[in-house]
C-alpha cells in the first residue's frame, strides 16, 4: 500500500487507543482463562473412547507402514494427544470422503485426515486450531520434461483428489489454462494415472507429494506452493466440543514441549518446517507498533470499534508467542512510518510493500504477505472479462497505489482511461453506479470489499505482485525483527498464519449448506443427469459388446470341439473368477503401463464391463442353448438341416426365449456395475454424486437421490424389457 496518504492521527484518537488497548488486553486475558478452562475440561474426555475417522492412505499424514500399522503425522498427533488427555481413540481408516461422511452421519466422533479448514466445511464441521500449514503443488512424471508450468497443460488432463484443495485449485485454473481436471479418490490411483500417461500431472498438497516422491512414485514437483491451507481436526458442528477442546489443549502442549516438531521431523525429515525459535531479548518487553488507521483487511475497526485485521492478528499472535507485549498506535500510513523514523514507535506493520527505496530507511522482516493487483467489475456485469474489453471505457484506481500504477501501464495498450480516487468506497461506488466499468486494486483489499458485499466481482488473475513486510528503523531493534521472523515462521508452520488470512480473505459461507432438499435436487440435477447419461451409454455399449462376446463364446462352449470349449471356458473362468474392480484397474492402469499406450477412462470402463458381462453372457447363452431339448437338434438334423441351419432356425429362437429373463437380469447388474468405475474417475452417476457430496457434505440427501435415480431407471427399463419380452416371446 505504498503511497497511501493518510491524515495524521489526533491526540484525541490516541486516547481512544489507550482505552482500546485496555480492552484488548482484557480480551487476551479472557482468552487465556478460556484456554486454562479447556485444560481443566479434560475431565470431560478422560477415560472416554472416541471413534476417529481418517483417510486410508494420505501419506505422510496417514498410511500403513510395512507391518500394516496405521501410522503418519495425523496418527501420531491424535494418539499422543489422546494419551496426554487421558482418552482413547478407535481409529477407522475409511478414505477421505467416507471419513467426512462418517462424522456427518454420526458414525465417528471426529476426523483427522489432512483435512483443510475451509468455509464450506466450517458450515458442517467445527475445527480445532490448525495443526499443519500446507499448500498445493503440481507434480509430473519424473522423466517428463514437457510440462514445467501451468501453461504447458493446455489440452491435457490432470488429476487431483476428490474434495481436496488440490482439486479446488486445479479447477480454479483449469479454464484459464485450458486443461481438464479429473477427480480421483486415492493417492496411488492418481500417481498411477500420471505414470501410466493417462494424465500428465497431479495437483496435491506438498507434503503428500513430497512423501510420495520420496517413496519413489516416479513423479517430480515442478511448481511452487499455491493456495495454502491449514489442516485441522474436526468434529460435527455442535457435537463433541469436549473432544475439540481436548485436541486443542493437547496440541498446544505438544507444540510447547517440542513433541509436535519431533513428529514432523519423523515424517518430513529435512522438509519439516523449522521449529518456533524463541528470540532472546524480547521477552517481557513492550514495543510500540505503529500502523495505518484503515486499510481493510489489514487494519480496520470491526463493528464494535476494535482494531482488527491481518496485520493486527499477526503482530499480536507473534507477540504472544515471543513473550513480549505490543502497544499498537493507529496513526495513518505516512504518520506510522514517520513515527518509526522519529523513534516514536519501535516498528511499523501497515500493509507496507517492501521496496528498495524503503530499504534505505527501514530494516524489513521476512515478507508476510504476497499481494498483487486484480481487476474487479460490477457483479452483474458480464461484458468485461479481460483487459481487452476495456477499450473506450473508464476505470478507477486508488491514488498512489500499485493498482493505479498497473492500470496506467496498460491503459494505452488496451485503450482505456484511468481515473485516480482517494477512497476505497468512492471507487466502488464509481463502478456500481456505472461511471467506471472496473477498479484496479490490491487483491486482498478487493477480496475483502467483495466479501463485505460491495457488489463487485474479480475477473482477472493477480498481476504485478508486491510483498508486505514488518519494518523497524534501520539498524535498530534487531531483536524485535528477529522475534517477528521467528514468530511468523512458527505461525506458517502450524497453520495459524493461513487461518488468519482465511478469516479475512475467504468468501463467506456459501448458502449451499442451507439448501432445502428440493433446492439441492434442482441444483445437483444437471450434474446427475450428465452422470446418468454416461451410466446409460456405458451400459448400452457394454451390453452390446457383451452380447456379441456371449454369443461367440457361448457357441464355442456348445460346439462340441474340445479346443474351442477350452478357449471359451478359460475366458469365462478369468472374467468370472476375478473382481470387476480388479479388471478395471488392470485395463486402466496395468495394461497402458505395460504396453506404453494410453486408454481413456471411457474405453477402459466399457472394455472392462463388456468383457466382464460377456463372461456371464457366455454362460447365459450356453445355458439357454443347452436347455433346449436335445431332440430338437436331432429332429432338425434328421430332416437334413446342417448344424448351423439348425442352430439358427430351431435352437437359437427357443434359447433366446429361455435366456431373456437372465439377459434382463444381466442388464440390470451391468447398469449397477458401472458405479464401480467411479473409482477410475469415470463421470457416471455415482461419481457425480461423490463429487457433489465432496462439495456440500449432504451425503444422506445425495445418496438418497442417487439411489432413487438408479431405482427409477432400473425399474422403468426392467418393466419395459418385460413388456418387450412378452410381446416377442409369446
Amino acid at each position, binding site marked *: 500500500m505504498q503511497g497511501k496518504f493518510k491524515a495524521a492521527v489526533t491526540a484525541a484518537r490516541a486516547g481512544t487507543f489507550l482505552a482500546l488497548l485496555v480492552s484488548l488486553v482484557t480480551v487476551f486475558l479472557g482468552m487465556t482463562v478460556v484456554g486454562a478452562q479447556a485444560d481443566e475440561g479434560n475431565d470431560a474426555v478422560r477415560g472416554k473412547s472416541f471413534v476417529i475417522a481418517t483417510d486410508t492412505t494420505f501419506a505422510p499424514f496417514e498410511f500403513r507402514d510395512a507391518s500394516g500399522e496405521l501410522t503418519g503425522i495425523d496418527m501420531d498427533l491424535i494418539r499422543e494427544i489422546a494419551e496426554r488427555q487421558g482418552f482413547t481413540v478407535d481409529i477407522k481408516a475409511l478414505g477421505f470422503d467416507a471419513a467426512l461422511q462418517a462424522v456427518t452421519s454420526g458414525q465417528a466422533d471426529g476426523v483427522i485426515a489432512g483435512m483443510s479448514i475451509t468455509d464450506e466445511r466450517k458450515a458442517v464441521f467445527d475445527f480445532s486450531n490448525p495443526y499443519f500449514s500446507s499448500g498445493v503443488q503440481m507434480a509430473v512424471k519424473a522423466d517428463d520434461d514437457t510440462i514445467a508450468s501451468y501453461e504447458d497443460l493446455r489440452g491435457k488432463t490432470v488429476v487431483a483428489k476428490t474434495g481436496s484443495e488440490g482439486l479446488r485449485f486445479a479447477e480454479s485454473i483449469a479454464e484459464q489454462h485450458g486443461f481438464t481436471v479429473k477427480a480421483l479418490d486415492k493417492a496411488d490411483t492418481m500417481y498411477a494415472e500420471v505414470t501410466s500417461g493417462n494424465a500428465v500431472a497431479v495437483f496435491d498438497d506438498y507434503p503428500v507429494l513430497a512423501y510420495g516422491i520420496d517413496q519413489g512414485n516416479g513423479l517430480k514437483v515442478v511448481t511452487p506452493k499455491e493456495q495454502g491451507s491449514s489442516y485441522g481436526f474436526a468434529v460435527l458442528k455442535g457435537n463433541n466440543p469436549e473432544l475439540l477442546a481436548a485436541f486443542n489443549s493437547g496440541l498446544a502442549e505438544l507444540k510447547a514441549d517440542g513433541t509436535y516438531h519431533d513428529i514432523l521431523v519423523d515424517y518430513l525429515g529435512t522438509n519439516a518446517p523449522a521449529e518456533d525459535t524463541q528470540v532472546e531479548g524480547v521477552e517481557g518487553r513492550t514495543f510500540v507498533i505503529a500502523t495505518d488507521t484503515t486499510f481493510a483487511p489489514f487494519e480496520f475497526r470491526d463493528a464494535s470499534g476494535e482494531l482488527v485485521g491481518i496485520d493486527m492478528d499477526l503482530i499480536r499472535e507473534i507477540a504472544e508467542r515471543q513473550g513480549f507485549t505490543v502497544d499498537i498506535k493507529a496513526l495513518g500510513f505516512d504518520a506510522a512510518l514517520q513515527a518509526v523514523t522519529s523513534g516514536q514507535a519501535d516498528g511499523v506493520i501497515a500493509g507496507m510493500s517492501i521496496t528498495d527505496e524503503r530499504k534505505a530507511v527501514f530494516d524489513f522482516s521476512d515478507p508476510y504477505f504476497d499481494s498483487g493487483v486484480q481487476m474487479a467489475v460490477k457483479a452483474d456485469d458480464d461484458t468485461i472479462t479481460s483487459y481487452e474489453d476495456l477499450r473506450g471505457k473508464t476505470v478507477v484506481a486508488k491514488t498512489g497505489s500499485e493498482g493505479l500504477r498497473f492500470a496506467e501501464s496498460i491503459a494505452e495498450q488496451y485503450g482505456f482511461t484511468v481515473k485516480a480516487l482517494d477512497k476505497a468506497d468512492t471507487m466502488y461506488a464509481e463502478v456500481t453506479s456505472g461511471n467506471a466499468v472496473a477498479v484496479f486494486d490490491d487483491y486482498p483489499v478487493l477480496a475483502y470489499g467483495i466479501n463485505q458485499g460491495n457488489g463487485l466481482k474479480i475477473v482477472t488473475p493477480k498481476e504485478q505482485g508486491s510483498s508486505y513486510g514488518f519494518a523497524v528503523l534501520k539498524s535498530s531493534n534487531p531483536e524485535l525483527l528477529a522475534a517477528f521472523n521467528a514468530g511468523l515462521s512458527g505461525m506458517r508452520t502450524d497453520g495459524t498464519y493461513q487461518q488468519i488470512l482465511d478469516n479475512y480473505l475467504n468468501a463467506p459461507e456459501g448458502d449451499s449448506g442451507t439448501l432445502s432438499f428440493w433446492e439441492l435436487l434442482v441444483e445437483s440435477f444437471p450434474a446427475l443427469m450428465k452422470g446418468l447419461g454416461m451410466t446409460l451409454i456405458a451400459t448400452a455399449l457394454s451390453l452390446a459388446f457383451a452380447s456379441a462376446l456371449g454369443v461367440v463364446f457361448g457357441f464355442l462352449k456348445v460346439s462340441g470341439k474340445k479346443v474351442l470349449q477350452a478357449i471359451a471356458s478359460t475366458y469365462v473362468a478369468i472374467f468370472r473368477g476375478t473382481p470387476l474392480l480388479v479388471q478395471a484397474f488392470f485395463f486402466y492402469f496395468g495394461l497402458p503401463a505395460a504396453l506404453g499406450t494410453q486408454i481413456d477412462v471411457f474405453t477402459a470402463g466399457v472394455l472392462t464391463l463388456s468383457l466382464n458381462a460377456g463372461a456371464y453372457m457366455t454362460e447365459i447363452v450356453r445355458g439357454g442353448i443347452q436347455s433346449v431339448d436335445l431332440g430338437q437338434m436331432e429332429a432338425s*438334423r*434328421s*430332416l437334413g438341416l446342417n448344424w448351423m441351419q439348425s442352430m439358427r432356425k430351431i435352437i437359437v429362437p427357443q434359447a433366446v426365449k429361455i435366456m431373456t429373463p437372465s439377459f434382463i437380469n444381466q442388464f440390470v447388474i451391468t447398469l449397477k456395475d458401472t458405479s464401480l468405475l467411479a473409482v477410475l474417475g469415470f463421470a457416471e452417476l455415482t461419481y457425480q454424486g461423490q463429487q457433489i457430496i465432496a462439495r456440500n457434505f449432504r451425503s444422506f440427501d445425495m445418496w438418497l437421490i442417487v439411489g432413487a435415480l438408479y431405482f427409477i431407471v432400473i425399474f422403468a427399463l426392467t418393466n419395459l424389457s418385460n413388456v418387450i419380452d412378452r410381446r416377442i416371446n409369446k
Partner: protein
Amino acid sequence: MSTTKADPIIEVDDLHKSFGANEVLKGISTTVRQGEVVAVIGPSGSGKSTFLRCLNLLEAVTSGTVKVEGVDLTDAKTDINQVRQKIGMVFQHFNLFPHKTVTENITLAPVMLGRMNSKQAAERASELLGQVKLSDKADARPAQLSGGQKQRVAIARALAMKPDIMLFDEPTSALDPEMVGEVLDVMKSLAAEGMTMVVVTHEMGFAREVSDRLLFMADGLIVEEGDPREILANPQEPRTKDFLSKVL
C-alpha cells in the same frame, strides 16, 4: 408283399457302436429292400434304438458300414445332410418345433433346403395334413395338440421332404393307449403305399400285421429274424421265447 426281387436300399455290414467302453452294437449285418417294412423288437437296452439311429448317422458309427441307396454313410466324404433328406425319422417324443405352427413345422425343411418354394411347401403341407387327418390344425401350435396329433404332425413333417425311407423310433411308446391306433393307422397306410420303413416298436400287433420282416435284437446283436408271424408264433431262440413270453 413279395420282397425278394426288390433292390436293397439299406445295407448294414458288421455294425459296431460303443459309448466309451460300453459296446452297444456288437456286429449287426442286415439288408433292407425297397418297399420293405422291417419291425425291430427286443428288450430295452438291446440296442435297437441305437441301431435305428445309426441308419441316418444320428449316432456316429464306431466300425462297420451303413450304406443307403449305395452311399456309404461312414465315409467321411459323404454329405450326410444330403442323405438325411432321403430318410425321414419319427421320434418317440415327437420333437416338434414348439415355436412354429403345425404348417411351419412341415414347411421349414423343404423351403430351407431349397426343395420347394414356400407356396409349394404350403400346398404339400396341406396335402400331408389331409393324409394324417389334421387339416383343421394347420395353424395350431404343437402345445395345443394331443400326443397322437403331435406324432401325426411329426410323420407329416418327415414326409414333407419326400423321403425314400422312413425310420420310426418307438413312435407310440409315449402315447396314451387310446391314441396309439390313430398313429398306427397312418403308418399302415404309409406301408400300404409302398414306403420303405424301419420301425422300432413294442406293438406286436403292428409287427405281425404290417411288417414284412421282423428283427429280434438282444444284447447288441440280431438274435433272430424272419417272417413276423412265424417268429411271433413259434420263436426258435430261447431269448426270443423269453422276451415274447413277457410281452405277449
